[in-house]
């Protein structure tokens, strides 16, 4: 983590037109998405697990993972918007990836609303798990398949070369790959702590 922060700001980066120093955002923006996707996949896995054995603890875990995932999603959006302002000239552009992420954020917001709207614990767990599993493949189609079919301003889509091909030099790689791990592990660590707090909370409430 600290390595990422310090190295991310201080190590030399290749100088490129337009991007300039903003390429340092690679360590934050891109890694946020890795962390988000990891969290969301885990939350889906717990939802499926809940549907097969209907234990409430799995549902709770799915909720915690998707909450942390949402935080990373918002962080990824904000860092991305700042980056977009300085490279593409606007905070928000009509780009398939941006649309996909906006839809995914909306879907998770709907997921949390659905959770809050139902009172009964078992019913809430079941409904939200079904919704999450139902919506997830469509989101995947949106985020991963659609951008490959249409033009996008993001690297690697619509004729733009991917980053790795020419502008990731070895110095950057040394920061980028650990950064992915660092952010993802930080997220997982936060989530496990939250799950433990939730467990303790439930226990104390039960014993009262």
């Amino acid at each position: 983590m600290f390595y990422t922060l310090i190295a991310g700001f201080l190590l030399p980066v290749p100088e490129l037109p337009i991007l300039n120093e903003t390429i340092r955002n690679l360590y934050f923006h891109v890694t946020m998405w890795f962390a988000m996707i990891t969290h969301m996949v885990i939350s889906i896995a717990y939802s499926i697990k809940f549907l097969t054995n209907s234990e409430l603890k799995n549902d709770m875990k799915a909720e915690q993972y998707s909450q942390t995932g949402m935080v990373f999603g918002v962080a990824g959006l904000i860092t991305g918007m700042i980056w977009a302002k300085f490279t593409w000239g606007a905070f928000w552009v009509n780009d398939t990836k941006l649309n996909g992420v906006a839809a995914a954020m909306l879907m998770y917001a709907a997921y949390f609303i659905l959770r809050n709207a139902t009172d009964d614990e078992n019913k809430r767990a079941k409904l939200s798990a079904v919704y999450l599993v139902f919506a997830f493949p469509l989101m995947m189609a949106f985020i991963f398949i659609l951008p490959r079919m249409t033009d996008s301003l993001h690297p690697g889509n619509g004729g733009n070369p991917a980053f790795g091909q020419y502008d990731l030099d070895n110095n950057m790689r040394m920061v980028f790959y650990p950064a992915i791990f660092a952010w993802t592990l930080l997220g997982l660590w936060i989530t496990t702590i939250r799950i433990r707090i939730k467990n303790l909370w439930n226990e104390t409430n039960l014993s009262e």
Partner: protein
Amino acid sequence: MVSQIGLIIAKEWKLEWRNRSAIAGLSVYILSGLYISYLSFKKIADPATWNALFWILILFMAVNALAKSFMTESRGLQLFYYTFLNPQVVIIGKIIYNGVLLFVLGLLTLLFYTILLGNPVQDIFMFLITLFAGCFGISSVLTMISAIASRAGHQSSMMAILGFPVLLPLLIILIHLSKNAIDGIEFSVNVKYLTLILSLNLIVPALAFILFPYLWRE
């Protein structure tokens, strides 16, 4: 199983026909919606706007039409289903019925839309295929969402909140495809979008098929 699906479809239709107020209400909803857009736009010169407005109308019509899909069923009827049919039959039957219903209503919308606001579509055959595929896709998503929303309570607002994000990817492809149909672009260009729509139309009912039994057992 196929005959049971047929039974479900027939039953849905009979209920719909016995109580015609629902379908009449929907038609009036469409007409007034169209008239509002006619009065606010008067004339649409830009095909892209025409296209977007058409799909927005279809979307709201679909949310309204399918919201009642599970709401109108009484406790007794659910118990009856539960004893005699398996859940997969119910969801598939409903998806097919709602798809056909949406397609018919969509054609009606298209007809009045053309009368009021003109019709810039050059490749009408392609447009109809898009409408058909779109109606089945929307129907399979919204029928499932309707089942979730009916269990959650707060029906009508819940439908929109849960449904719109999930419908977005589908709608974007549909709008793209129908825009191509309006511009009369060659069929070979559309093939990749069409396959994407068709695969979504297979994946979504398959998911509903797998997931609906979990909603069923309450």
